[in-house]
């Protein structure tokens, strides 16, 4: 938590706008938690037998995991492909990803009916035929990997030199393992919908759904790193060391260029999805409009804007484009899970989130922001610890 120094008295205060708002949200979140675990899911959700999955899956799980992909992409760029100029971006990206995945697991405790049994699929009776088993196992393992990748930062702050040095040695192996696990679970989240083609609108269903989700997770992660960097530069500028500040333009332009390139490929594979399944006829329909909006306004447009930003060295354009790209990912995940799913149901049977679902989602994100603040303020994320300069 941060506090401000009063300009006149020099005394610091916990009453900052962020702290006040966050505190209120946490109080509401705790109350909603009480309602959830005394009244069941019905108390604070609009989930029903036709819509067993709502925004806690669409946003907290699907978007949460896609947007936390900055961890594996940044680590890959730096440690596997050897682009050392991105090094300063690794720790913030890993922290964002670690908190992202931790929050996904936290949010799942609200969504599943019996969260005290969440360990069962891994430790008691694995349902290995299920795509969801694969998602669960991978997320569990990857959360461990992210934790270990993040661990050197607090260890440095705690001055535990020997343990920290051991952890650093594991970086490459953890990075490779993390990329393997990320590929698997990012694609498996798409694969979740393969089992229900009869309930999906054709424009968002393809046997290539796993590939769509994996490829889009790449530019989701890259865009989130740019977005997070924008916010961090606003609030943590004082904490950033020379390496971080000098590296930022490289990261911004490099990631924007990479994202633009990947989005191009993604656009075409989605296009081929329409071609291969002969789904042209669906384009001039209501759902076709949504699909076209998603592809043109939230994939093609940000890709071209990223390209323009790189060509004209325009950091501001790139930063705003990152917001558009992130919104595009959210739009896509919502389209797959709530628009395309059960599209054929009459509108009176359709689902809209309960205010309680929105409340918990905001609560979960706020907890993440609070943790990011605490960790960012107290561990070497935006700067290199003086004792360990250059040693990673």
């Amino acid at each position, binding site marked *: 938590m941060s506090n401000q120094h009063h300009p006149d008295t020099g005394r610091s205060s916990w009453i900052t706008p962020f702290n006040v708002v966050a505190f209120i949200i946490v109080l509401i979140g705790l109350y909603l938690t009480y309602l959830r675990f005394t009244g069941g899911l019905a108390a604070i959700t609009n989930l029903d037998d036709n819509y067993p999955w709502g925004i806690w899956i669409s946003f907290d799980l699907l978007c949460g995991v896609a947007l936390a992909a900055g961890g594996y992409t940044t680590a890959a760029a730096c440690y596997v492909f050897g682009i050392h100029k991105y090094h300063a971006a690794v720790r913030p990206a890993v922290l964002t990803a670690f908190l992202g995945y931790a929050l996904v697991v936290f949010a799942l405790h609200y969504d599943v009916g019996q969260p005290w049994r969440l360990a069962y699929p891994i430790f008691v009776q694995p*349902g290995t035929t299920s795509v969801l088993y694969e998602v669960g196992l991978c997320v569990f393992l990857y959360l461990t990997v992210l934790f270990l990748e993040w661990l050197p930062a607090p260890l440095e702050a705690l001055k535990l030199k020997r343990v920290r040095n051991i952890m650093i040695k594991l970086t490459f192996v953890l990075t490779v393992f993390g990329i393997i696990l990320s590929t698997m679970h990012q694609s498996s989240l798409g694969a979740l919908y393969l089992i229900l083609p009869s309930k999906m609108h054709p424009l968002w269903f393809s046997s290539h759904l796993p590939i769509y989700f994996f490829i889009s997770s790449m530019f989701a992660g890259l865009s989130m790193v740019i977005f997070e960097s924008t916010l961090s530069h606003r609030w943590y500028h004082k904490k950033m060391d020379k390496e971080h500040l000098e590296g930022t333009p490289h990261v911004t332009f490099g990631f924007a260029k990479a994202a633009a390139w990947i989005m191009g490929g993604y656009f075409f594979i989605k296009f081929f999805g329409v071609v291969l399944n002969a789904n042209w006829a669906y384009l001039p329909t209501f759902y076709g409009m949504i699909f076209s909006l998603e592809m043109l306004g939230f994939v093609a447009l940000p890709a071209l804007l990223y390209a323009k930003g790189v060509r004209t060295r325009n950091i501001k354009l790139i930063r705003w484009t990152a917001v558009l790209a992130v919104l595009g990912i959210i739009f896509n995940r919502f389209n797959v899970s709530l628009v395309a799913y059960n599209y054929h149901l009459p509108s009176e049977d359709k689902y809209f989130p309960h205010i309680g679902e929105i409340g918990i989602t905001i609560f979960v994100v706020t907890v993440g922001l609070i943790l990011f603040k605490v960790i960012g303020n107290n561990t070497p994320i935006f700067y290199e610890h003086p004792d360990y300069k250059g040693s990673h």
Partner: protein
Amino acid sequence: MNRRKFLGAVGAAGLTVAGAGKVLAADKQVTGASIKGVKGLPDSYAVLFDCNRCIGCRQCEDACNYEQNLPEPDVDFWDTGVFERRRRTDWKTYTIVNQYDDKPPGAGQLYRKTQCMHCMEPACASSCFVRAFAKRHDGAVTYDAKMCVGCRYCMMACPFNIPAYEYHIASDPLVTKCTFCEHRLEKDEEPACVEICPTRAMEFGTRQEMLREARRRIVEKPDSYVEHIYGEHEMGGTNWLYLSPVPFEQVGMRMDLGTKAAGEFTSGALGGVPLITALWPVFLVGAYAIAKRKEKYAKEDRDKYVSQLIAQAGPEAGRRLAERLSKTEKLDKAAIEEEVRKALDEAAAKTEREGH
């Protein structure tokens, strides 16, 4: 060779011969890759529902409610008002009868009973990440309330929209659906709904028997039936089969589900996962090795030019060049030329000064 070694050799030879024999015999069991199949469950129990015979009395719903100890329904079983809209299963309603013609509610002639289809290859079982669903060999698809985590993926997966959930319960919410009265099947008794039906709209026997009975009825009364046994192949086949006098869409049954079992849709994607485990290390470490090699050669090139310059013009010039070259990834040829020229100019200026 001593005796022990000899016996050992004989023993080894004998085992090898026996092993080889087993291997060669196993060869005979091999079938072509495309023919891989499963035995099936033709003797599992099945129910044949005949829409011609259903009169919409809903006694089956009543019997199910009683047999399963379910709470009081929201609307009484004798209240024909329920037919005003199409219902689906819910947490306390494992089976429902809907009316499918335009006649006044309860005064119709076309009704159909909905309940779990007890599929041969259940989507719920395939999708459950904790194996809470099982396809028993007696035909029932069962649910293990002790394992269920409440993720509700089964509800997403079921193409017939059968499983319901106890959203209003916090302590032990469960997924609910028809159990095929397995507690009765174990005693070779027919399910409660089948037993109570006054018009014998449901017939009970093995799946093979029910298919034969269905075919027999179609042959004997072709005007009374659409020539299709619903559930024979749909979603890989189901143990609850249907006959209808009208096209099945008209009694609320989808004809576009296909014959592929739900698990077949995901099996391929899941099969790709091990490939990633094996191949990603190859690609990633390969990329790393290539990147490292490029770095190494680039450094060697830089060092070569720097040491050349040191030899020609002394350590100071070399240090300056090293600093400039370290700034870019690619070999900055322009920088090299410039530094060399500068160093030579300096050297020339120096000799000139010394000459004076």
